[in-house]
């Protein structure tokens, strides 16, 4: 009875996930299907093979397919454009050289998830599944399909193998997390987005202070946009009896860039650490500081590339890679690094250090091209006077303030509304929910998309 029920649950989830993805663009369902089927059989073939060379062949076949799809859909035009610029070739944009295709939503997320599966099977960390439906569910699970968290098979796949039973408390928590995610996205990220767009679309009309302020606001916009989505995804998964990984841990409390990357997009950082950084460092005969630094730079370059086919993202990745490298150099006595020093520094000083660097990073991320990023940075550091900043302040920052207070006050919880029944009576809780819902509906800006959907 249990197995039948579980099978039915999985089939329902699979159909729902494919409908969910197909509603965006049904044509790309074939790509999702193909990726799933290739990696399913790659996993089975790796397990079945005794010879290491054959196992390796299947592994690289799977990686080649997944990375190939990423390159074809996400980076092909970028490479052509960059090479033609480098060689001063004039290729018309509507010519045959460019591939006129849109990037499938969530491509970077689900391909990374499937790569991790085959690699873990190859490393014998997990056993490949023999159940077609379970594996397809793992790749296409709709709450996290389009923007993560990037789950490892070892965590998510076993959850499809057991029957999910309805849990009232978990479901309530799920709804609360969805509500908090909506608050972050609609009331904080979208509001900040208006101010940020205003400044970044006309940087020449603003002075140093406004530009720097807009960069800080963009950091918060990005955080609330992405972590808001993650909360919605985790909350939705809870309603179906699934537990997804935590992806953010109040990243703006970080004292260093190193700590930031442990708190920001945790599942992506973990993915790159496990599948790029560690293998790279391990290939070296002697693990020196230089090897580690090169590994970091390479990893962060790829992190930047993962975000999109634009030089700004590559610059963003490299900039962070350099900072991570610098923080690990033993500048101080007794092999003391900047990273360690910052941990013992008063928080206010560490925060100033962190926000200065992360704002530069945000400018690289948000600018249309490197030229604009450099222009904005030049304008900030030339200390140009501001003529008007009033439009940036006001209700847009009010929500940000609420967010910061709420997150700081509940920093030991996964999200501020968690376990609310332990603190407030039902009447107060419902009043809070209704207030949030009212504000979310009333103050929602006209349709805004999630920033991380494009990645």
């Amino acid at each position, binding site marked *: 009875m249990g197995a039948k029920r579980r099978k039915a649950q999985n089939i329902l989830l699979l159909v729902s996930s494919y409908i969910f993805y197909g*509603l965006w663009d049904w044509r790309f369902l074939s790509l999702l299907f193909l990726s799933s089927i290739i990696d399913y059989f790659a996993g089975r073939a790796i397990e079945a093979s005794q010879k290491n060379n054959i196992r390796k062949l299947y592994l690289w076949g799977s990686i080649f397919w997944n990375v190939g799809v990423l390159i074809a859909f996400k980076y092909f035009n970028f490479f052509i454009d960059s090479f033609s610029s480098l060689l001063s070739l004039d290729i018309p944009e509507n010519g045959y050289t460019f591939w006129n295709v849109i990037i499938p939503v969530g491509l970077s997320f689900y391909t990374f998830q499937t790569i991790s599966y085959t690699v873990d099977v190859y490393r014998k960390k997990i056993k490949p599944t023999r159940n077609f439906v379970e594996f397809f569910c793992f790749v296409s699970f709709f709450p996290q399909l389009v923007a993560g968290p990037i789950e490892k098979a070892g965590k998510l796949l076993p959850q499809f193998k057991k029957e999910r039973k309805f849990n*009232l408390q978990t479901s*309530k928590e799920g709804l609360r997390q969805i509500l908090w995610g909506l608050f972050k996205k609609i009331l904080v990220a979208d509001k900040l987005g208006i101010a940020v767009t205003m400044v970044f679309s*006309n940087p020449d009309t603003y002075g140093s202070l406004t530009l720097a302020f807009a960069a800080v606001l963009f950091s918060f916009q990005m955080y609330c946009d992405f972590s808001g989505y993650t909360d919605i995804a985790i909350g939705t998964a809870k309603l179906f009896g699934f537990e997804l990984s935590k992806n953010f841990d109040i990243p703006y409390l970080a004292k260093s860039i190193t700590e930031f990357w442990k708190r920001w997009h945790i599942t992506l950082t973990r993915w790159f650490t496990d599948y790029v950084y560690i293998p790279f460092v391990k290939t070296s005969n002697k693990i020196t500081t230089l090897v580690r630094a090169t590994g970091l730079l390479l990893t962060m370059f790829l992190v930047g590339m993962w975000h999109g086919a634009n030089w700004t993202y590559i610059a963003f990745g490299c900039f962070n890679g350099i900072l991570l490298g610098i923080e690990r150099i033993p500048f101080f006595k007794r092999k003391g690094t900047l990273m360690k020093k910052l941990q013992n520094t008063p928080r206010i000083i560490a925060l100033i250090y962190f926000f200065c660097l992360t704002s530069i990073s945000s400018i690289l991320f948000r600018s249309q091209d490197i030229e604009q990023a450099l222009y904005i940075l030049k304008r900030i550091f030339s200390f140009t006077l501001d003529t008007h900043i009033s439009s940036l302040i006001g209700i847009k920052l009010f929500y940000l303030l609420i967010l910061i207070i709420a997150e700081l006050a509940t920093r030991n919880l996964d999200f501020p509304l968690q376990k609310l029944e332990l603190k407030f009576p039902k009447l107060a809780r419902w009043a809070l929910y209704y207030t949030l819902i009212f504000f979310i509906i009333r*103050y929602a800006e006209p349709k805004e998309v999630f920033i991380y959907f494009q990645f």
Partner: protein
Amino acid sequence: MTRKFLKYLLWFFSPVILGYVIIEILTLNLPLGYKYTSEYLQQNKSGIQVLILGSSQLANAINPNFLSTPTLNMASGNQHHDTDLKILKQLQPQLPNLKTVVLEVSYSHFELPHNGKDFWKNNVYLKYYNINAFERPAYFKDKLVYLSNPPFFSVKLYNHFILNEGFEEYNNFGFDTNNYFGRFKILAYNESEILKTKFKINSIPDLKLFKNNTALFYEILDYLKENELNIIICKAPMYKSYLPKRNSEILKRRDSILNIIHLNYPNIIFLDKEEDTLNYNVFDYKNQSHLNPKGAKKFTGSLSKLLDL
């Protein structure tokens, strides 16, 4: 347990759903231009001969009441050529007697981004005109008007139902005949004060946008040509302080494209009043780039002469 949860959900969300339904009904009862335009469209489908497309500049500049030919003004604030094309393709088959389409090419029209499929007014087009501009199948939520732009409709609701104030006075064509309220009225049409005020104008050239937008504009022209419809391209009047602020690069590119169009499509008629500072004075404007109903009467008169030719 599941039943308890569903009950809990129903109990919790009932007031939210009820509250939203009330808000949506109130929104649909607001005196909005779309509503009147929609009514006119429904009642005169077989008679409409002229279709006007474009942004707020033509929406404010053409009052179909002053035209002898049955005219539907579908121009609307922030409506770009991509939406114009979608409206045209879906409306044209419904208008058997359509003879002429009026298009707008304002100063920076070719270098402003298109609205895309997430434009909030897509809900409005779907609800009032049954035009799907989403580039995908429409769902139930796409017809919800209030949810398409809550801040905009909240202000409208507050003004209409709480303050009992409403400046708009729409005629049967959906044209606001009391659309005088703007920067110029606030400054009591004092020209020296007006000349001092700052205003929003796009001054950033964008060649990539220009290429894309021009290609789409040609698509509109070709569609109209295929369907043997007359074309009038309009440039609405701009106040004299607006003219020197235009970016010369944007302006030059726009005008060169219009010259090419003029050569390649000899039957297209141009109504160019952008720099007409003789016939349009300060009292004809709502602000630097939009006419008020008084100015609209003059501009519609010019259009009327072309339509009667």
